[in-house]
């Protein structure tokens, strides 16, 4: 699978998303061959590959596998729930390349000695069941249909839901109890490393962020959708891959509803290394493009209201703090002091990262849309 070169000179990879319009098990075997055996060598290859989680937290995959494998009784859950509204990369991956994800799940289960392998999704379970039925009998994970909510994809909430409980975070890390939770995209990459090795995996991306990643692009671009890119791609290249902007861009939300608003600088480098310097991160590679004719504060208020509504409802600071945040942002002239006061009472006071993620997004909005804030204080707005 070598990359082709696009018109702009950037390399276009199709490791996960290839042009195969008929994703049958047969065509999967024709393309990649039989599933390799899971072995200690595979674990070493994964370590050498530098593969990190593709669900947003970018935790080193080999490290997680080692931690889980230490337990006597283990379990593996593939996370395909994708509760983030602005993300569709997992849905697209499962529709176009389910067998690669399932290979990765089966391999991960073997590597940690798990007896149970489950793939959790919130929609399209029947299509997934059909893909599983095509596989050899001993390579058929179970499907868990989980309610579609933002917090349901949080690791501990997902484990709870798969085990029959509520899809609410427990504040504990599953891998500390021998349960491996991996995003479906991570497992797809794992299945490719098993066949083609660490060196091949590292032939894309950067030294610190090797491999390819799936990104979901939406907003003011001509062809919104899911693209496969290398970390280090610029915003200009990403937007070009999506048909270019549909109107002049003002800002981008990078990393999803937990992410950060940044000015739409075409030279913005989309890698965790570069974004960290701006107080941001790639997260699950959700990029929303905001045009100049839109109001960044209105968008932020809308997202904050959604996040408030999606609270698991377990912790007071989140249940009360997020609606208060959303309410303040929806005012004609939001008060930065009030938002800081709320932030101090919200930060690190919940059982999961939901309130902190929302707060981070709001704080980035205050920085990026400071001109908009001043306009609003004078009774004006970009959108009017």
């Amino acid at each position, binding site marked *: 699978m070598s990359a082709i070169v696009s018109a702009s000179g950037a390399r276009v990879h199709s490791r996960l998303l290839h042009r195969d319009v008929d994703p049958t098990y047969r065509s999967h075997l024709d393309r990649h061959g039989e599933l390799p055996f899971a072995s200690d060598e595979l674990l070493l290859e994964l370590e050498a590959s530098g593969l990190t989680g593709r669900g947003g937290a970018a935790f080193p995959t080999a490290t997680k596998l080692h931690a889980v494998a230490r337990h006597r009784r283990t379990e593996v859950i593939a996370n395909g729930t994708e509760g983030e509204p602005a993300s569709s990369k997992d849905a697209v991956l499962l529709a176009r390349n389910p067998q690669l994800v399932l290979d990765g799940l089966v391999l991960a289960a073997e590597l940690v000695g798990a007896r149970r392998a489950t793939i959790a999704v919130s929609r399209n379970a029947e299509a997934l069941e059909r893909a599983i039925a095509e596989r050899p009998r001993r390579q058929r994970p179970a499907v868990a249909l989980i309610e579609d909510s933002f917090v349901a994809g949080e690791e501990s909430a997902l484990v709870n839901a798969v085990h029959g409980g509520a899809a609410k975070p427990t*504040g504990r890390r599953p891998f500390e109890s021998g349960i491996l939770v991996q995003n479906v995209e991570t497992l797809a990459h794992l299945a490719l490393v098993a066949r083609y090795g660490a060196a091949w995996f590292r032939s894309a991306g950067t030294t610190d962020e090797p491999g390819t990643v799936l990104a979901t692009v939406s907003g003011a671009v001509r062809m919104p959708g899911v693209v496969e890119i290398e970390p280090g791609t610029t915003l200009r290249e990403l937007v070009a891959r999506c048909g270019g902007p549909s109107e002049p861009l003002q800002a981008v939300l990078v990393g999803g509803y937990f992410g950060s608003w940044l000015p739409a600088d075409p030279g913005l480098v989309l890698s965790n290394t570069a974004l960290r310097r701006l107080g941001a991160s790639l997260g699950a590679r959700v990029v929303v493009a905001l045009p100049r004719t839109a109001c960044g504060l209105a968008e932020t208020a809308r997202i904050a209201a959604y996040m408030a509504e999606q609270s698991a409802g*377990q*912790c*007071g*600071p989140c249940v*009360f*703090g997020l609606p208060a945040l959303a309410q303040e942002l929806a005012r004609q002239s939001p008060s930065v002091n009030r938002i800081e006061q709320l932030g101090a*009472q919200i930060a690190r*006071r*919940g*059982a999961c990262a939901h309130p902190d993620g929302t707060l981070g997004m709001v704080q980035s909005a205050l920085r990026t849309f400071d001109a908009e804030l001043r306009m609003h204080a004078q009774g004006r707005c970009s959108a009017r």
Partner: protein
Amino acid sequence: MSDELKIDIRVCDAYGYCAELLPEIVDLDEWGYPIVAGEITPDLLAAARAAVAACPRVALRIEPSRRLTVIR
């Protein structure tokens, strides 16, 4: 030797008894939920135990200090 007051914020229902019994280290946010701003020094231990027992949601626990005790 100071212990820590731990709160399971998921079960806390903002009764506020802990803040009343242990005002030295427990503040309340604007919605009535506790913010622990210090450690349980030996003089506060009795009050801390009272707070743990008084909580209607059993949301509190005292976590012993992890520091080594110097035996003279």
